[in-house]
């Protein structure tokens, strides 16, 4: 393969809170290749969401660099930054808070098309319907208000919005954890098929190794703002080397190793 789609190196971020400095990220480096699913796992507070926010330029890093599609992302500002945005999209964790509560499904999907001029005024309604179909929703939902559809449907709309601009990378920050197990599986399948069709890469953030095991090609395990280990997903789940990796794997509920009541 040629150069990676995304190359992150030495990313650091500190927050100041109540006079104390909190190190959210401390020199994080990794790469994501084209058409790859790269997972970030780690316990709560290890800095996964911070990575996502920095990548999407929702916050500014204190140190380090982000190269995406060969561009230095951190050097972009204003118009230039917005011109790049279609290439890099995100799906948020909580489908309830990811949309303007006053919006309709149609408007949510229309916005990116309008902003980036991806379809003419007259073609846009049709384009919106196509998007809905792509994520397995009925075009009839266009007129519904966001709060009138279910959580699973909302997450599909979120994915539709993310793919509307034909991005090369989508960051999914715990995009599945608010969903029911059964819905979760459907969405996972949708993501996989999109990747196969369009070659999109995913940065898949989760604290659930079980899910990660099913979708990720490669995994980075994070702990306390740093990457503890990186590797092939299968390999890490089978034989984690870092203590945090071991703990995560041990905590994975599975049929193979039932925790009996007497175990502890």
């Amino acid at each position: 393969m040629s150069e990676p789609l995304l190359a992150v190196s030495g990313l650091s971020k500190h927050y100041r809170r109540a006079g104390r400095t909190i190190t959210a990220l401390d020199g994080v480096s990794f790469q994501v290749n084209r058409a790859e699913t790269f997972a970030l796992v780690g316990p709560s507070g290890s800095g996964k969401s911070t990575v996502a926010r920095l990548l999407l330029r929702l916050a500014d890093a204190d140190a380090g660099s982000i190269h995406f599609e060969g561009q230095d992302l951190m050097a972009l500002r204003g118009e230039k930054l917005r011109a790049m945005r279609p290439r890099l999209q995100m799906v948020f964790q909580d489908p309830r808070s990811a949309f303007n509560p006053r919006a309709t499904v149609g408007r949510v999907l229309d916005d990116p098309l309008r902003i980036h001029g991806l379809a003419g005024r007259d073609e846009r309604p049709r384009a919106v319907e196509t998007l809905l179909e792509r994520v397995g929703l009925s075009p009839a939902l266009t007129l519904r208000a966001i709060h009138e559809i279910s959580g699973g449907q909302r997450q599909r709309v979120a994915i539709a919005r993310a793919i509307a601009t034909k991005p090369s990378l989508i960051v999914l920050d715990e995009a599945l954890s608010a969903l029911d197990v059964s819905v979760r599986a459907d969405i996972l399948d949708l993501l996989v098929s999109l990747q196969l069709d369009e070659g999109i890469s995913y940065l898949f953030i989760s604290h659930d190794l079980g899910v990660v095991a099913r979708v990720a090609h490669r995994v980075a395990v994070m702990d306390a703002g740093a990457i503890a280990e990186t590797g092939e997903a299968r390999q890490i789940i089978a034989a984690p080397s870092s203590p945090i990796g071991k703990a995560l794997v041990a905590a994975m509920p599975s049929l193979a190793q039932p925790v009996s009541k007497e175990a502890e």
Partner: protein
Amino acid sequence: MTTRLSIGNLGVRYRRDGQGVEALKHVDLDMEAGKCLAVIGESGSGKSTLALAIAGLLPAGTKFDGSIAWPGLGHAPLNGRDIGFVFQDPSASLNPVLPVGEQVAEVARTHLALTWREAFGLATDLLGRVRLPDPEAVARAYPHQLSGGQKQRVAIAAAIAARPSLLIADEATSALDTIVQAEIVALIGRLVTEDSMSLLFISHDIALAAQLADRIAVFRHGRLLEIGETGELLRSPAHSYTRSLIEASFGPAAEERG
């Protein structure tokens, strides 16, 4: 085997905006003493409603029929004394302005006829039992000073303070990350065994439930779909819905990717 709790033809209707919302229909269920029953189901399937109905905590104005019987108890069950309850969100289930020690101690004081001093002593012991480091210090701490997992341990300590015979854990681990989740599940398992409590373990994660439960009950749309011994149910689910749940949780595993 003694039956601790026997639920017969339970139905619950909430009132919302003047309309009825059917949350549970025709539920029949027995719980045995000292055993763990897991309740599984998707969001809105009525799991919490069942738990609240057992503890008599349904909101005012809720219609309720059927029976909940406590054979062998001899009196109406008392919350805290006979039933311990652990909720999903550990941050929300503790009063933010009281020290956690007091919140555990007040349960002991209410049900065990102790003085405050004795109750605080017991509370500290309990905080130790749920494996909180330095229980004395934790007793003086406020909820916001503890992590999610620690708060859930405090909630568990409060729930078992009066040694109830039934512990209800309603999604007690789903707000926590996987590592902490595993610890809490293990803790609950251990406590239940030590005190020979019955456990009603509510979860939407069948894999997690399977680790603890002797029996699993599957709920959907307010109905009890099926109930069976854990191994039995996992091996040969009677319903396709149950099967889809099992598949979503356990297999087809990562090997399929590549």
